[in-house]
């Protein structure tokens, strides 16, 4: 700043003055945000990276740098590997199913004029419902002896399952809740995408010989929805990777770690067992996954700009 002032001493015009006062105002306006950003985002992220190389445990006095010990330990840790696998499996179920159902419901609602807002509300309600509260309801629905789902299964002659209580079904039961919770959100995004498609395109496709609705979908709807779809895909995957609430409320990762997911393991190691160093290394892996997803999103958004 000082050197600039000297250089321009001869020609200290009003414009320069004005520019400097504008920059000063801008700094003042941005300062609270910068301070908080550094305090609550940047520093903690740096701290997590550093803590991941230590054996820090809350309540234990000395901290030792252990290099990559946490990381080598991590990939030999059966519970962590189980958590990674469960998170992947959960995401591989919840993301595609909730995207396809979201798209399907959006297309049905868009094509059907009748009771449009009722249907939209019905499917969207889970998005604005307190998930911990609704998890309690789902626990009742899934109840092995008094639950309506098993009662229905009984009527249909299907075997009754211990949905949340058995290690072969716990993760799938949570996935069902996850799908129920996110279809409405995806539907709303697809509805917005569908309304943005110009009607003339359908008319044009019909003139060009696209007679069936399947043809119209393949030729017009699907390509025009491309950007929305890619966006929904990334958001759905990110949200599935961040799943925690239902696991914590309903299964506590059990039985026998069958529904242990990444965030639950981090929570357990860091805040229950107080192994901050080890949990920090896990957090770095979690962040790395988000970085990859974010990178994909940038590439996709980039392409989206070129298309439109």
């Amino acid at each position, binding site marked *: 700043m000082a050197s600039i002032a000297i250089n321009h001493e001869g020609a200290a015009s009003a414009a320069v003055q004005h520019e400097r006062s504008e920059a000063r105002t*801008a*700094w003042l*306006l941005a300062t609270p945000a910068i301070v908080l950003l550094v305090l*609550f*985002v940047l520093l903690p*992220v740096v701290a997590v990276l550093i803590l991941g190389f230590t054996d820090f445990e809350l309540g234990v006095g000395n901290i030792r740098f252990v290099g990559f010990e946490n990381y080598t330990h991590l990939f030999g840790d059966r519970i962590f590997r189980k958590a990674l696998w469960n998170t992947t499996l959960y995401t591989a179920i919840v993301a595609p199913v909730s995207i396809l159902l979201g798209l399907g419901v959006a297309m049905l609602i868009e094509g059907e004029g009748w009771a449009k807002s009722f249907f939209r*509300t019905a499917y969207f309600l889970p998005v604005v419902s*307190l998930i911990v509260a609704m998890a309690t309801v789902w626990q009742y629905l899934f109840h092995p002896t008094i639950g309506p789902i098993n009662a229905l299964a009984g009527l249909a002659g299907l075997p009754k399952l211990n949905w949340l209580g058995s290690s072969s079904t716990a993760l799938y039961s949570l996935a069902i809740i996850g799908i129920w919770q996110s279809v409405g959100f995806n539907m709303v995004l697809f509805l917005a995408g569908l309304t943005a498609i110009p009607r003339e395109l*359908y008319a044009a496709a019909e003139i060009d010989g696209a007679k069936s609705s399947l043809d119209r979908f393949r030729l017009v709807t699907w390509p025009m929805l491309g950007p929305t779809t890619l966006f929904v895909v990334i958001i759905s995957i990110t949200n599935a990777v961040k799943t925690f609430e239902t696991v914590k409320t309903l299964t506590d990762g059990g039985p026998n770690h069958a529904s242990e997911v990444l965030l639950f393991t981090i929570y357990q190691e860091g805040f229950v067992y107080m192994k901050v160093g080890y949990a920090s290394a896990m957090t770095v892996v979690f962040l790395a996954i988000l970085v990859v997803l974010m990178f994909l999103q940038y590439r996709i958004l980039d392409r989206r700009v070129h298309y439109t």
Partner: protein
Amino acid sequence: MREQSRLTPGRVLRLALLILGAIIFLAPYIFMISTAGKAQDDIFTAALSLIPQQFRYLENFSKALAKVDMGRLLWNGVLVCALIFFFQVIVAIPCAYAMAKLRFRAARTMMALVMLGLLVPIHATALPLYVGFDKLSLLNSYTALVAPFTISVFAIFLFLQFFRAMPDDLINAARLDGMSELGIISRVIVPNAWPAVTAFAIFSVVAHWNDLYWPLIVISKPQYATPPLGLMNFRAAEAGDDYGALMAATIIITIPLVAAYLFAQKRFVEGITMTGLKG
């Protein structure tokens, strides 16, 4: 799209699918309302009958209200969400305005910081923040619940997009009228940014009303519990199967946000579409 009024086979199939799906999606709510009115033995015998044999709503609701301090939970939820939203907006708007409409060298660096910040959820910063709050003896306080969320890079990002689209002439005219930059923000920018603020309000409230992770970490005293945390503790304490009282508590806690949504559906949907982000 054309044969709207006639019942063609296609339309019947479409309606059937929509209605079936709607029933499945609403089923948890239907059972929630039904079970909240049932007596214990009624719950244990007839899982599929929706009408309670004797209406025990009063009993179950008073049991829920007696066992959990619902007023406290809801108040904590409202207070925490309101404080978070207030600080997020008051911090983000001036910053976004500076980045969008004023020339300063750090704008590019700020943009990079914002993009970086969008990537980092509370789950990633929780460990060091927890250690910090612990060292400052701030665990179990409203400060601990609110402080980490006072900065929302997403708010900065959203407002930035919105402000960029505002005409510079509007701001220059205000400057010629002798308005200060703060005056411009409060009297020109904010009133015009109302759609963005509303959209962000919906995003922020839905996210923080529902958040369990951070309150679970920093709060162990019931007097600071937020709705998700309070309900989780109630559930854990109620290890038996008193589903009547549990469902009553669930209804009380689910109502505020669902009611807000039903009152302002269009706004909610716009808000969700505009912010296009969750959690």
